[in-house]
């Protein structure tokens, strides 16, 4: 027992591995229930219009059509995930009087097959009266802009203010001040499995929903509200999910319409959104325009930052309000700004709603912040790594009034990246390395959803043979939480990973969990699982101590299936035997361990933060502006590594996604219409475009996390766009302040630079 841990930190096969590589994993997309119907949703072709009338009679009469629903079939409620704030619950899902973007649902059909359902949509006659519309946040906040939601002044949906220190005074003391403007674009989650749900309402008034969701608990609760049902009568099951990335934890049109249709006719209904619907009628990354002012002393100490962000909210609130908050908070990361001010505004527009997406406002903040740090370093004549060292966060740092940071390995990461860059030596012409530093949260503390439950809970149940059933509401959406949580449970209980069978995210049998977002599962649910395992372990040890007749001065522990005296490991009994005897000894009562976790006294944002620094090397074609990603090196720390293969996968995947955000992923619009709603036109990084990746793990230990672990996955999306922008500047001397960084933008900026230089001569 020389190594510290038996299970965690080891390379293991994921617990869902074999079913995924053999094609036997059944996703929501694959579910076929007896007597099931297929649903399709009719959506608004207008960006803004009054619904004058909807005539569904022809569709209803069509052979093979079993139900048609519109707003008339609902209980006329509006929903939103910010439940604490009724004014932010603004989405009917099935629109009653007004549509607000191209894709807003107006009706849904259940039919014998998808062909029939789609044909039936063509028979629904909707009379619209087009209304004036507004398509960008800067237009939306003008005095005379059309109103997206009645009574919302200047279309301002939410505002956010964060401030500490005395920013105005501090700027007076700065030697260098610069102000820059940045534009961050949208991005599609582009989950491989589109949004889908199968709903089955029974004659006895119970509803079961299989959903491709990141938070089965949210789906359950929000559906209950929208259907006028009790939460307990709704069971939401999350089968394997084909990706989420922030796009699947709000109630969506597939879930709601499938449930509503099923409730109307007591037959199962499955709805799978098409790829086009996925692009145009779900949610997307929040586009933001920023003005950022930063001031520093000659020695590189940054005294003040003042940043304003205006986000394009699209038609509804969703999780967009949180993105507005987090982009303001993470604009202060990972530096010790003594004086800081953020003003954020979220404006409604007549476009597809914007919301959470991996990084949650932070990739945008880092694109802005890390470019500006490089720019001011240049103004000051200070090395980019050095200025980050001077100002970087340290362990036990308090973000004034906001957050308390315990573990922080930023400086070690900076050292590693510094060494790497120095090791590369002089680069050829038109090559450049750019750096970006970042920090990210391990789950959110904010409870705008107003859940009365603990944020995470877990139950461990032991079988007579010592095998373990783990019940938790955590949602594995591909990131691997089922494996991580099973590893934590196995480690704590002292059994093999193969002894654990996890049952996750089925609201009828698992305790509530807020789901997979904000990088919360490892820390929050991990703590709950660890506590549940510890609870079960305590019960076994009680029995073992009595059975072994151990002097009470000794501590017992369990590891690798043995219960032993901590200071005399040779005195041991089999865990499996003891469990069998313990259950018999307790009159057959099942051994159940319970655990839960809610952060307390950890500030306003998150109980823990992870940090990292990324260096990206790019090569720019000076004649065309085409940029190639050569290598991405990331030094990062995420506390104790639970599942190393999982972290590598998260990191490389983050580079694919964040690199895409920087390079090619965008959703350009013409008057509110997304111009590339197909994978032929929406470009994502593929294997030939993917750069080499290197990971440098930095050791830290997070006291708040299970076995010292914290976030590893979402934060890794943050640095890449900023690092690439810095790399382009270092390669060819141009600053690109808007995303994505296309060859055309680089080319045009280079032309402009040449023209300026010529003029200067």
């Amino acid at each position, binding site marked *: 027992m020389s190594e510290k841990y038996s299970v965690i930190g080891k390379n293991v096969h994921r617990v869902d591995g074999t079913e995924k590589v053999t094609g036997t994993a059944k996703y929501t997309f694959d579910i076929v229930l007896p007597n099931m119907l297929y649903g399709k949703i009719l959506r608004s072709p207008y960006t803004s219009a009054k619904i004058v009338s909807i005539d569904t009679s022809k569709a209803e009469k069509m052979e093979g059509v079993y139900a048609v629903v519109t707003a008339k079939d609902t209980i006329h409620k509006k929903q939103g995930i910010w439940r604490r704030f009724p004014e932010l619950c603004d989405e009917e899902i099935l629109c009653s009087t007004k549509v607000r973007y191209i894709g807003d649902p107006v009706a849904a059909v259940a039919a014998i097959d998808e062909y029939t359902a789609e044909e039936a949509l063509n028979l629904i006659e909707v009379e619209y009266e087009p209304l004036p519309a507004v398509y960008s946040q800067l237009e939306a906040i003008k005095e005379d802009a059309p109103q997206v939601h009645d009574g919302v002044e200047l279309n301002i949906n939410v505002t956010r203010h964060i401030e500490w220190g005395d920013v105005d005074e501090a700027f007076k003391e700065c030697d260098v001040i610069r102000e820059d403007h940045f534009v961050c674009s949208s991005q599609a989650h582009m989950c491989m499995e589109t949004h889908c749900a199968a709903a089955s309402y029974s004659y006895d008034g119970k509803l079961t929903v299989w959903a491709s969701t990141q938070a089965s608990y949210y789906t359950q609760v929000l559906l209950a509200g929208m259907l006028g049902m009790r939460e307990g009568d709704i069971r939401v099951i999350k089968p394997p999910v084909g990706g989420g990335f922030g796009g699947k934890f709000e109630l969506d049109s597939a879930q709601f319409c499938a449930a509503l249709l099923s409730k109307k006719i007591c037959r199962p209904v499955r709805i799978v959104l098409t790829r086009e619907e996925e692009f145009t009628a779900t949610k997307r990354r929040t586009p933001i325009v920023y003005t950022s002012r930063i001031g520093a002393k000659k020695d590189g100490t940054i005294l003040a930052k003042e940043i304003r962000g205006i986000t394009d909210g699209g038609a509804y609130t969703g999780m967009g309000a949180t993105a507005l908050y987090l982009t303001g908070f993470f604009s202060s990361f990972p530096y010790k700004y003594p004086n800081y001010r953020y003003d954020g505004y979220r404006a409604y527009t007549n476009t597809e709603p914007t919301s959470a997406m991996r990084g949650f406002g932070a990739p945008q903040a880092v694109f802005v912040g890390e470019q500006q740090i490089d720019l001011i370093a240049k103004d000051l004549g200070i090395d980019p790594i050095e200025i980050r060292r001077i100002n970087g966060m340290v362990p036990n740092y308090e973000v004034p009034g906001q957050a308390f940071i315990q573990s922080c390995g930023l400086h070690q990461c900076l050292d590693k990246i510094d060494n790497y860059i120095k090791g590369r030596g002089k680069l050829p012409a038109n090559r450049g390395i750019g750096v970006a530093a970042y920090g990210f949260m391990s789950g959110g503390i904010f409870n705008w959803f107003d859940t009365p439950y603990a944020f995470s809970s877990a139950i461990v149940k032991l079988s007579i043979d010592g095998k373990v059933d783990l019940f938790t509401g955590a949602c594995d959406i591909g990131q691997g939480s089922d494996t991580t949580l099973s590893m934590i449970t196995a480690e704590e209980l002292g059994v093999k990973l193969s002894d654990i069978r996890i049952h996750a995210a089925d609201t009828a049998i698992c305790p509530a969990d807020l789901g997979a977002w904000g990088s919360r599962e490892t820390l929050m649910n991990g703590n709950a699982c660890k506590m549940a395992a510890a609870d079960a372990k305590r019960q076994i040890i009680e029995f073992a101590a009595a059975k072994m007749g151990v002097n009470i001065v000794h501590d017992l522990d369990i590891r690798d299936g043995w219960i032993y005296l901590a200071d005399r490991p040779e005195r041991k009994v089999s865990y499996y035997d003891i469990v069998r005897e313990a259950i018999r000894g307790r009159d057959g009562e099942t051994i159940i361990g319970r655990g839960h976790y809610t952060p307390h006294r950890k500030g306003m944002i998150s109980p823990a933060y992870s940090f990292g620094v990324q260096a990206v090397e790019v090569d720019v074609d000076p004649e065309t502006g085409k940029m190639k990603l050569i290598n991405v090196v990331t030094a990062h720390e995420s506390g104790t590594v639970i599942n190393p293969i999982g972290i590598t996968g998260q990191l490389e995947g983050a580079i694919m996604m964040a690199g895409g955000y920087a390079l090619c992923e965008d959703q350009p619009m013409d008057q509110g219409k997304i*111009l590339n709603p197909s994978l032929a036109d929406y470009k994502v990084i593929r294997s*030939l475009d993917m750069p080499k990746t290197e990971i440098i793990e930095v050791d830290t230990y997070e006291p708040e996390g299970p076995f010292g672990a914290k976030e590893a996955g979402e934060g890794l999306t943050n640095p890449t766009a900023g690092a690439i922008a810095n790399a382009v500047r270092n390669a060819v001397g141009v600053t690109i302040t808007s995303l994505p960084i296309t060859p055309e933008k680089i080319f045009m900026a280079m032309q402009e630079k040449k023209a300026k230089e010529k003029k200067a001569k």
Partner: protein
Amino acid sequence: MIKDFEYFGPKTLNEALVLLDKYRDDYKIIAGGQSLIILLRQGLLQPENVIDIYGIKELDYIKSDGKKGLKIGALTTHREIEYSDLMKGSFKVLSEMEHLLSTPQTRNRGTIGGNISHGDPAGDPAPVLMALGANVKLASVAGERILDMEKFSVDYFETAMEHGEMLVEIELPAPPPHTGAAYTKFNIIASDMATVSVASCVTLAADDTCTDVRIALGAAAPRPMRAKAAEAILKGKKITDALLKKAGQAASEEAEPVSDISASEEYRRELVKVLTARVTKEAMSRAKAG
């Protein structure tokens, strides 16, 4: 969703031509289907009859005819061309082009005849075929006709094929000695359609004078086009970098690109300029080596 249709799967060219003649008014030919099925699913095409020619084995071949050049059956897949041993000398460019075309699955299934018949001005094969001076053979019940590849593409997704006609063969003339050809395409994601593409084929005399040059542009006009002004600058001269630059400029001026979400018209012209010079230089160095 695809609207249902009558399906025909002829196994010989003759059977196919008879079907084309019979359903003259409303049919679509499907070969590999890599472009057509998308249009069917979008509901933009709703043909009554679909004639699936993929099973016509007699149109799947690559034949080298020594001095006469190369003949490629219309139903030869991209993959077969990509890995064919016959793609030697200045024909090597065909295999290089195919390697850049879309993704492995598309290359496995899609055919060269299907690709050029689809008439997408951003398609990869057409500019290369034009640069190599290819002819296409069209067949109908009335007989066959041979058309210069340049005249085959007419407009966006339009070709010179008449109703009742289908493409059966691509003929590539044997290149004179000291001929080299190269192809390049600009895109952001490797497997993507071209933002702009350029193919160039250069023939040099013993003293390195350019005796012939053919430059073709993709995605730079409503159809793949020859950059004849650029060619005129180079023909009969010893090609220098300065001359290449001039040719690039000329190509950029004669191109007719439009702005779209991938690139502006202005940027496309820049790309034509740069790529024309680059790829012609490469073709030239291959000609020298050849």
